[in-house]
């Protein structure tokens, strides 16, 4: 008798567990269809705007995130890509919001929040947000965590080739070392380039002090003769082939390079560095907000986030996804630096419009030739061009007159 009762209880327990299991999405590919099926058969679609090469696309047997989402929900994903935060910003500003999901970086999110360009997310319909590590909730760029769900994070450090650089690298100052003239690469975007210079000089990454920015600008000008090139993705080729020996870049990208060139090392300088977060948001006026939230939730599913992060190579803010990673990756100090290193990092925040403008003009000053730009060049050029064309016409007319028999 007792045994029967026990069996009954067990069966009841199991029965109760079944729907629960279906709820605990992820692991075994079981997703909550009551949730993901909301839009099935409605011909819905969302427009996703992401960085290039920034989502697992099914190569090497990994998950094709967009396709999996389409199959799961019946929502079509229109996927397009951008290369810089500023590009994303100008697209949204200029063309009006036609995107439903965007993935800007931290400082751009802060700027967009300030300019009222983002929709508040409905976290009720993003249950998988619970997978996000506490540490990455309520970040400085979105203090109440109302607009964004972190997607990836990473640090900036120095990548160097031990064939050329034999000394230990622990400071940004190596990028100013005369000894490595011509072997140094540098960021071609102003924010990163200024950021590390500001760190070297002991300033905040987000300083609004114009004298400090000016000092950083002078420092960058000092560096210019030593720099081989100002680059972004060319860093991969140049570092792999040994064409350059020292370059500041993102930790995740170093890991990809290190697979192909074992002489490369990565170091986070003692002066501290930038910790960046790219997070998923919905722009103001998005036409398919509910479907977009489904997509964001899908990105937070442990298995999806883990496959994504393996493809991208950056670090994940998703605790459940982190658990799924190889132990080797979990313990990698480059990808997941120890707390004392992380403490010494600073995120980028939005700068005031005046400071942004100053930064732009200072960066142009760094990149342009030493000779100052002469404001008379344009008018003189126009006058010469007009004069030239009038001259030609006159000469032609004169010749015609001479040639004509009448």
């Amino acid at each position, binding site marked *: 008798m007792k045994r029967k009762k026990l069996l009954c209880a067990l069966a009841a327990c199991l029965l109760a567990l079944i729907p629960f299991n279906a709820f605990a999405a992820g692991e075994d590919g079981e997703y909550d269809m009551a949730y993901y099926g909301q839009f099935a058969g409605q011909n819905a679609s969302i427009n996703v705007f992401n960085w290039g090469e920034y989502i697992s696309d099914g190569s090497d047997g990994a998950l094709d995130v967009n396709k999996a989402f389409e199959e799961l929900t019946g929502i079509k994903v229109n996927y397009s890509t951008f*290369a810089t935060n500023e590009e994303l910003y100008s697209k949204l500003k*200029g063309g009006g919001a036609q995107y439903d999901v965007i993935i800007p970086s931290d400082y751009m999110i802060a700027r967009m929040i300030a300019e009222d360009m983002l929709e508040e997310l409905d976290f009720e319909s993003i249950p998988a947000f619970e997978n996000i590590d506490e540490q990455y909730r309520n970040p400085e760029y979105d203090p109440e965590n109302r607009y964004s769900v972190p997607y990836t994070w990473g640090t900036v450090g120095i990548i160097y080739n031990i064939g050329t650089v034999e000394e230990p690298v622990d400071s940004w100052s190596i990028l100013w070392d005369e000894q490595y003239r011509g072997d140094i690469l540098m960021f071609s975007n102003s924010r990163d380039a200024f950021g590390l210079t500001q760190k070297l000089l002991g300033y905040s990454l987000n300083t609004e002090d114009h004298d400090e920015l000016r000092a950083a600008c002078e420092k960058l000008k000092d560096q210019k003769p030593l720099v081989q090139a100002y680059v972004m993705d060319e860093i991969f080729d140049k570092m792999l082939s040994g064409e350059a020996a020292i370059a500041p870049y993102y930790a995740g990208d170093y890991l990809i390079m290190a697979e192909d060139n074992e002489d490369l090392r990565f170091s986070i300088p003692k002066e501290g560095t930038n910790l960046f977060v790219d997070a998923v948001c919905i722009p103001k006026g998005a036409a398919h907000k509910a479907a977009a939230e489904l997509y964001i939730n899908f990105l937070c599913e442990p298995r999806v986030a883990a496959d994504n992060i393996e493809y991208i190579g950056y670090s994940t803010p998703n605790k459940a996804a982190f658990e799924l990673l190889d132990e080797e990756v979990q313990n990698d100090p480059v990808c997941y630096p120890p707390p004392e290193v992380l403490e010494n990092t600073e995120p980028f925040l939005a700068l005031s419009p005046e400071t942004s403008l100053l930064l732009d003009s200072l960066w142009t000053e760094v990149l342009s030739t030493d000779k100052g730009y002469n404001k008379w060049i344009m008018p003189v050029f126009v006058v010469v061009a007009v004069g030239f064309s009038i001259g030609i016409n006159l000469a032609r007319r004169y010749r015609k007159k001479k040639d004509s028999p009448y």
Partner: protein
Amino acid sequence: MKRHKGLSRLYTGAIMVFLYLPILVLIVFSFNRNKSRGAWTGFTFDWYLKLFHNDAILSAFGNTLIVAVVSSVFATLIGTAAAIGIYSMNKWMGRAVRTLTYIPIMSPEIIMGVSLMMLFVLMRTKMGVPIQMGLLTLILSHITFNIPFVIFNVLPKLRQMDKNTYDAALDLGCNPFQAFYKVVIPEIMPGIMAGFLMAVTYSLDDFVISYFTSGPTSQTLPIAIWGQLRRRVSPEMNALSTIIFVVVLLALLLGNLSSIQKERRERKAVRI
């Protein structure tokens, strides 16, 4: 004389190397096992296989083709009609319109891109035209910047044409429409074809204008490549570029071969 020939061959060779070496490098590295262009680690067809499973790249390529073909067809129709109109204008009108047509060609692409984007946004927000950035805006802008190229390819052919042939056709019983498509069109056909091909080429190449006028559903190949810039351009792009290069090369070779044969046949016919 012979020495000269050697020299000219050398010169031609140097130019060929100059033009094709970069493409050759790209082709070679599309077979590289390694993801980078820095190191050669072994031969593989992987990138070609992966390419055919990469929906993002393929759909971008599809968009590029659709935009190129559709916009070139429309630009050719509109441009040819415009050229015929300009041709029959009086001297001053004609000159004024030609100058106006030159301006879009001469002015930097970015100006055209930004102004088209502003126009589309204005149409949507202020004039109530429900136009979304997408394939449609992309095609419209490509038509816009392609029209001048067609016009300037057709105009010289019209000038070469003997005007009397048209009158003769009318005298021999054609109505004006028949005279137009039986006499004028065949006469200027080479110009129309050249204009069309030029339009296709410019449209395939275009990045700047597409960048400003494309939307979430209509990324073209150049924009997709641009998007990969922060991470790095994937080797599938090398594979795709190689395929495009080979296809274009084959098309050109076939075209040239057939025209050579045609010439031979005609020469034979004359001899007989």
